[in-house]
């Protein structure tokens, strides 16, 4: 069934969108990743304009992160104070990101920016995931990997120290604020939640206990992606509500199915497949940039008329 998307102004198959939402939802439920970094490039591939894909995906992530965060609220695994600091940084970052996005849009380079960001980050994440799961496969019965604590002198020597009770930390507010800014920028440019950057940063840089990391990052993501949605909707008019609803219906159902599957299947071994998928999407985007395109020209709406 074809459906006309009012903002994207293209006609696409509704079941394709529901299916995409579902598949990415299953993956995100199974592996605990947000899914934005897979969904946005897939939307490019099916012909949604990149600006609409990024803005609409931010809107969809509001739904999936809220749904995920609810479970963590109940289990009290959210550090609200840390979340607040991350969120303030995130809001600032999102504003900066949208400014950059709109500036490059006026230069006609926004597609390049979005695609380059994706190639770089998907390459890094896919590569790391692949190496990690390969290690786990090789020594599948090894003892739990001993992680080296990072040198935390810098985090401890900065001013504005704050006590984060839930995390059991007494550190400067500057590092989480900076992490928040960085994630906010990525959220605005790439249409992702940024959990894949924030979670490792929280563990390795801030030294937060793993128990509260996911809940706190989800808490931050709700607000930052909601703010990003609002900024894109008011400055670019690129949030497509019909597209968002179709994706999030598939997404939330898929996520719940994925969570169930994840507890039954050996997700660690499937993780290598996810790594391959991420690398494949990255490779496709990279090839588009490297190979001579069949059509050298592209059309855009004129500014300032």
């Amino acid at each position, binding site marked *: *069934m*074809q*459906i*006309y998307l*009012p*903002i994207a*102004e*293209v*006609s696409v198959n509704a079941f394709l969108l529901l299916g995409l939402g579902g598949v990415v939802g299953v993956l995100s439920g199974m592996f605990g990743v947000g899914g934005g970094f897979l969904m946005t490039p897939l939307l490019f591939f099916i012909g949604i304009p990149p600006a609409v894909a990024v803005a609409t995906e931010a*809107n*969809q992530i*509001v*739904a*999936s*992160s*809220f*749904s995920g965060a*609810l*479970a963590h609220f109940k289990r009290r695994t959210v550090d609200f104070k840390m979340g607040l600091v991350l969120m303030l940084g995130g809001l600032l970052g999102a504003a900066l990101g949208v400014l950059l996005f709109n500036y490059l849009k006026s230069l*006609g*380079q926004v*597609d*390049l920016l979005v695609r*380059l960001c994706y190639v770089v980050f998907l390459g890094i994440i896919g590569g790391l995931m692949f190496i990690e799961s390969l290690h786990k496969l090789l020594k599948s019965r090894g003892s739990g990997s001993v992680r080296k604590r990072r040198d935390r002198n810098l985090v401890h020597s900065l001013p504005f120290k704050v006590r984060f009770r839930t995390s059991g930390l007494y550190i400067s507010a500057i590092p989480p604020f900076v992490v928040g800014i960085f994630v906010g920028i990525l959220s605005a440019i790439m249409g992702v939640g940024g959990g894949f950057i924030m979670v490792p940063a929280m563990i390795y840089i801030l030294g937060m206990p793993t128990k509260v990391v996911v809940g706190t990052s989800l808490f931050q993501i709700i607000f930052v992606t*909601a703010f990003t*949605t*609002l900024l*894109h*909707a*008011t400055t670019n*008019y690129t*949030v497509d*509500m*019909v597209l*968002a*609803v179709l994706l*999030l*219906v598939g997404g*939330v*159902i898929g*996520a*719940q199915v994925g969570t169930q599957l994840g507890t039954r299947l050996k997700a660690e071994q499937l993780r290598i497949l996810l790594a391959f998928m991420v690398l494949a999407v990255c490779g496709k985007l990279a090839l588009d*940039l*490297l*190979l*001579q*395109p069949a*059509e*050298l*020209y*592209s*059309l*855009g*709406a*004129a*500014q300032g*008329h």
Partner: protein
Amino acid sequence: MVRVLFALFIFFSVTLAQAEEVVLGMSQNEVAITATFDGSNILVFGAIKRDSPIPNTPLHVIISIAGPSKPVVVRRKEQRFGIWVNKDTVEVDAAPSFYAIATTGSFQEVLSETEDLRHKVSINRAIRSVGAPMDVSNAQSFSDALIRIRREQGLYQSLEGTVALDQQTLFLTTIKMPANLTEGEYRTRIFLTREGKVLNQFETSIDVRKVGLERFLFKLSRENPLLYGLLSIAIAILAGWLASAFFQVIRSR
């Protein structure tokens, strides 16, 4: 003096009445973009009214449908540091969002160059490109690219020889409008030509607009973007909450 004018008036109205004139019918003068819009076929048909006998030279009919004209930026990619990036830019002052031209014969046969210039009938003439920046080489290739890209999207169509003309009196054609239409007044023109000269011209318009939910959402997003943004966030929050509540009920059973 008045008599002379009156006589002139009579003379001209008689000659006008003697010329061949279009009487037009269309399957629809409105295209509604609904949620399930998947393109539309428009049937354009009509007859030629004349008082005098049919001349010997062959009659041709040209039908054109043009969407609203807007300035378009055309960018050309170049290889920089190994990757292909947009570099040169030319702004085409006005290009119709949709343009279909259907004729009874080959284009050279039905319309002369000067008449095309006067009435701006062919796709090349319908696009207006005045000032390309001096530093951009080969500016013509940009408007060619615009036409090529829109042709591939089905937005620009030259349908030579697709108008059926019966006994030099009845004509009929269908024009397929694709799903990726933009809103606006679609100017529809019908020309009657003999030996490349326009004898008569008839003009009407097709109203293409989003309706229902599509219209509501599009208008809201442009006229009240803050409310639209808040609404999309509210829907997302609600959906997230519903999903987790729903699956909790299922799991607790």
